[in-house]
């Protein structure tokens, strides 16, 4: 079975810290085999299908070949053996940052929908007209200060999203504060993983506000994850498994 595997820089497992043998030229990397019976998050080679990528975003994305016993779970695939086939070169620091930025703009969209819903059209238009993230953040902060309830929550998420996209803490809305305040400096992969989840949560909250029911959260969250996955699949040239 062919699948995908995110790894930290240096081709090491985020959780296992295992250093994966890389392919050499056209030759796949060496096979890596589980030494004990397969167990989720503990024993076995862990990978994911294209549809499961969003939960495990990291610095490097590899195509991996799985063999032996293979168990497909909701969130991952666990196999008896695996070997790295090829680095997905389209996923690099720049693409991760582009993805994070795209997610931040999605947070803007959820905020402006909410502002329109509650009648704050001037604040919404200011968000619409923003062409750069920092400009959007300034508008989101202003909207946050002039609103309350759902609109304030979603405008706050939009402002947070810009900070997060820049590797800052979410509440650091002041663009004059240096990025170096964040320690340790996180990779674009970590930023992308984080921001994508935060924006999906904002989408869930927006869906709750629009429907007036907490049960709408899951659909809103899932719809945003679907959009994010489509973005990744298109940019990385990945198949979809849905």
């Amino acid at each position, binding site marked *: 079975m062919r699948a995908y595997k995110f790894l930290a820089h240096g081709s090491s497992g985020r959780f296992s810290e295992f250093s994966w043998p890389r392919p050499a030229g056209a030759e796949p990397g060496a096979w890596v085999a589980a030494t004990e019976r397969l167990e989720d998050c503990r024993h076995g080679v862990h990978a994911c299908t294209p549809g499961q990528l969003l939960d495990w975003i990291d610095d490097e994305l590899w195509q991996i070949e799985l063999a032996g016993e293979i168990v497909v779970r909701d969130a991952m695939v666990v196999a008896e053996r695996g070997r790295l086939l090829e680095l997905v070169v389209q996923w690099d620091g720049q693409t991760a940052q582009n993805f994070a930025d795209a997610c931040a703009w999605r947070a803007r969209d959820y905020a402006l929908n909410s502002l329109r819903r509650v009648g704050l059209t001037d604040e919404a238009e200011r968000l619409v007209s923003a062409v750069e993230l920092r400009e959007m953040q300034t508008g989101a902060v202003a909207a946050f200060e002039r609103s309350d309830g759902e609109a304030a929550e979603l405008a706050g998420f939009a402002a947070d999203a810009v900070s997060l996209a820049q590797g800052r803490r979410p509440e650091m809305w002041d663009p004059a504060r240096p990025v170096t305040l964040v320690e340790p400096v996180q990779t674009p992969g970590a930023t992308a993983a984080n921001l*994508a989840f935060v924006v999906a949560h904002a989408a869930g909250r927006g869906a709750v506000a629009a429907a007036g029911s907490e049960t709408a959260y899951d659909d809103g969250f899932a719809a945003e994850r679907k959009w994010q996955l489509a973005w990744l699949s298109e940019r990385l040239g990945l198949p979809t498994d849905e």
Partner: protein
Amino acid sequence: MSDQPAFVCQEIVELVTEYLDGGLEPSERLAFERHVAICPPCRGYLSQLRRVSRVAGGLSEDDVPESLRTSLLEAFRGWKSGPRAK
């Protein structure tokens, strides 16, 4: 919402030792890792704790110089008998 457990950062801090010792239930391990995957500060925390564990795990009691051992014990005793910090 999902039926699976979802952790916040504070719970990750509380559970990290159990996670590293392999003491979490499968569903908790998955929830732990899903949180760490999308939370840069928790990624950093887990990584730092692993480094500390590796370094400290290589030490034995004999590796601590006698003078340092004595001063540490005095400090611990003083801390225990001293006024409680507020």
